[in-house]
């Protein structure tokens, strides 16, 4: 019996190994989860590329680090020309996106608002950027279709216990005026506006559109019109800032033409005021 057992052992062992081999190479015949997996793939690839970008320190990128530079006042920043080097000290009010080791941030101090576009930022640092935390950002002043930005920047967190979360300033009465641009990138509020109809690609009147022309689907930016009784304005829920699971996104999807709403958000600029809405209250 013992001899038989030993004579069977090799074949048994090899069978087990082969079974393991087959198990290892077995592929699912189910379709891959395309959307989710691709997002992960993209993120991983982009993160790797971004790491290289940072290491390489491309020639036109930031020439001074935020830690070394002295911060300027908001007035000096506002007066700086496009392409001037700038350093600002401000408090995080909103995080729009992180990708390729870069973050886009809404910042504000007691004097004004800033938008740091794709500033160098590790994923770990991005997680540390809670509302109100103070950062110093060095980069260059840029302007993209009207939007003032700090571009090609880097930042340091100044975690000295000094925090500031701005109150949204009501600019409803500034809508349509030249004065509104002074609030660019600040946290702002609009009160008592009425949802006006948008027209979808089929000519139907709707309360909102996915993408500016209704060509998108859930998950894309939302566009909706509001009226102050005199003029109609286009507002946006930027999907990177408030995704489809956010309260603001869902609230806009539930809007009806004629609803009266109070809104809060950041005063982004694209060829004119293009508020990025973060809070919706239907009255």
């Amino acid at each position, binding site marked *: 019996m013992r001899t038989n057992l030993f*004579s*069977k052992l*090799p*074949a048994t*062992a*090899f*069978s087990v*190994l*082969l079974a*393991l*081999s*087959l198990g*290892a*190479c*077995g*592929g*699912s*015949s*189910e*379709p*891959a989860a*395309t*959307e989710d*997996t*691709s997002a992960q*793939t*993209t993120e991983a690839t982009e993160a790797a*590329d971004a790491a*290289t*970008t940072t*290491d*390489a*320190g*491309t*020639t*036109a*990128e930031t020439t001074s680090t935020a830690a070394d530079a002295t911060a300027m006042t908001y007035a000096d920043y506002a007066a700086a020309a*496009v*392409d001037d*080097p700038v350093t600002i000290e401000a408090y995080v009010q909103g995080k729009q996106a992180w990708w390729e080791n870069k973050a886009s941030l809404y910042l504000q101090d007691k004097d004004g608002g800033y938008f740091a576009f794709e500033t160098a930022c590790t994923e770990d640092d991005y997680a540390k950027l809670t509302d109100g935390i103070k950062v110093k950002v060095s980069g*260059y002043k*840029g*302007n*993209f*279709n*009207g939007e003032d930005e700090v571009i*090609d920047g880097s930042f340091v967190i100044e975690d000295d216990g000094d925090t500031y979360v701005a109150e949204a300033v009501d600019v409803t009465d500034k809508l349509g005026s030249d004065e509104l641009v002074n609030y660019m990138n600040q946290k702002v509020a609009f009160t008592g506006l009425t949802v006006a109809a948008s027209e979808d*690609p089929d000519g139907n009147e709707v309360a909102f559109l996915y*993408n500016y*022309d*209704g*060509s*998108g689907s859930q998950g*894309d930016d939302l566009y909706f019109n509001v009226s102050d009784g005199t003029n109609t304005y286009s507002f946006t829920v930027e999907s990177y800032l408030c995704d489809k699971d956010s309260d603001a996104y869902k609230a806009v999807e539930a809007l009806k033409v004629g609803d009266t709403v109070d809104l809060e958000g950041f005063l982004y600029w*694209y*060829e*004119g005021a293009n508020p990025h809405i973060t809070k919706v209250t239907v009255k």
Partner: protein
Amino acid sequence: MMKTNRIRRVAILLALLCCVVGLAGCHGSSDTTAFEAPETWDASKSYKLTFWAKNDTNKTQTKIYEKAIADFETLYPNIDVTMKLYTDYGKIYNDVITNIATNTTPNVCITYPDHIATYLTGENVVVPLDDLMANERYGLGGSELAFDGPTQDEIVPEFLQECVLANSHYALPYMRSTEVCYINKTFVEKLGYKLPDVLTWDFIWEVSEAATKKNADGTYAVNGQQVMIPFIYKSTDNMMIQMLRQCGGGYSTDTGEIEIFNDDTRSILKTTASHAQTGAFSTFKISGYPANFLNAGQCIFAIDSSAGSTWMGSDAPLVDIAEDKLVQFETAVRMVPQYDTAQPKMISQGPSVCVFNKEDPDEVMASWLFAQYLLTNEVQCAYAQTEGYVPVTTKAHESDEYQAYLDAAGTDNDLHYQVKIDATKVLLENAENTFTTPVFNGSTSLRDAAGQLVENTTKSSRRKEKIDDAYLDALFDDVSALYHLDQIGGTMAIGDKAALGPLPRASIILIVCLVVAWIGIGAVALRDKLRSRQT
């Protein structure tokens, strides 16, 4: 004793057989056998096809695809096509890559040859179309087709040639566009210049510099506004690629040897930098959409795709700026500026359509029929009219419907918008002057690097940095490292697998198990042989 030996041998043979079966099974889990066109296509079977496409955030394009599918399904009731729409080609590419591993690619996909080059790193993933195209019954113009598709001779040869990778056609062209220069002709003439039929780089730089002149109050003389960026380029990768091709400068070899870091590139960058420094030139990435500046009278030369023509001009059907900022001017359209006007060269771009391999050759044949259907006049003419695209077949160009569309240029500011049809005509009249860049594993990175060179130099110049050879040496090193161009170096021809990365853990386990199994089998066989000698 003999009986025991026989049992052992049988056991070993069985183990050996299992190994072979195991290896074969493993191979089959990730790869499909090469496609061979069946003698006859079984039209009695039902087929379910998936079609992945992009719609340019344009509902009209979506409707054209939907109609094409419905019409095709009417012709072939046994074929059911399900469409999945994407808003950018990068997402299609990512999803295809993800699904190659599980043999769940779509049947038909709108894509770019650069992407197909990557798909081809897997074996038998994309179907080579040469035999299918030549098939007398189901090929281009075949006798058994249920629709009036183009023959191979009726596909614009330059566009079809772009779909050749590794000496085989791996796609059919679907739509083509090129870059064109949208011009505020009113301002050009106000500055004292006459617009030539073919722009030169010298002309565009000279007029752009003239437009930077300011009034005493700081406004620009030509438009009286605070803002004027005379020349804005949307896609700086195309800018560098076309300038290099026009002046005979190196870019890459067909097999992927990188040639872009050369003296011609230096010269182009120094010239570009000198005009960026004066404010005569900027880019989309730095300043914003060229169309917005053009339409606001803040730009004179806006170079963008012919497929972006519906945004260009005072009467453009699509406008992204406030009505009170729109400026009335005469819009002219020209081919991109040239170094040698007698031998113009411009890039050809636009989507193609490829067919993915499947276990069932009949299913692939059904996919091929649908891919071909996208080249019928009905689809080509309808889709091309949604933007400044050009149909890829001469059959469509010469059709009454398409000729009537071209002839109606300027009769309205929507479907027949003059600027859109003018942009389309630039490509229609210059198909023989188009080119594409070589496709290889890594060609997408090289393209990105070409644009990065222009972007960085422009930014640095605007920031008053000195653009000299030392600067360009550092820039070349940075960009080469950023895009891993030093790792391409002619070793990444299509079919190479050098860029696939480390083996997955499951593969390592598989290999180790197989090696151990084979060693064990060999050891037992050897032991038995020795024992049999001893007895």
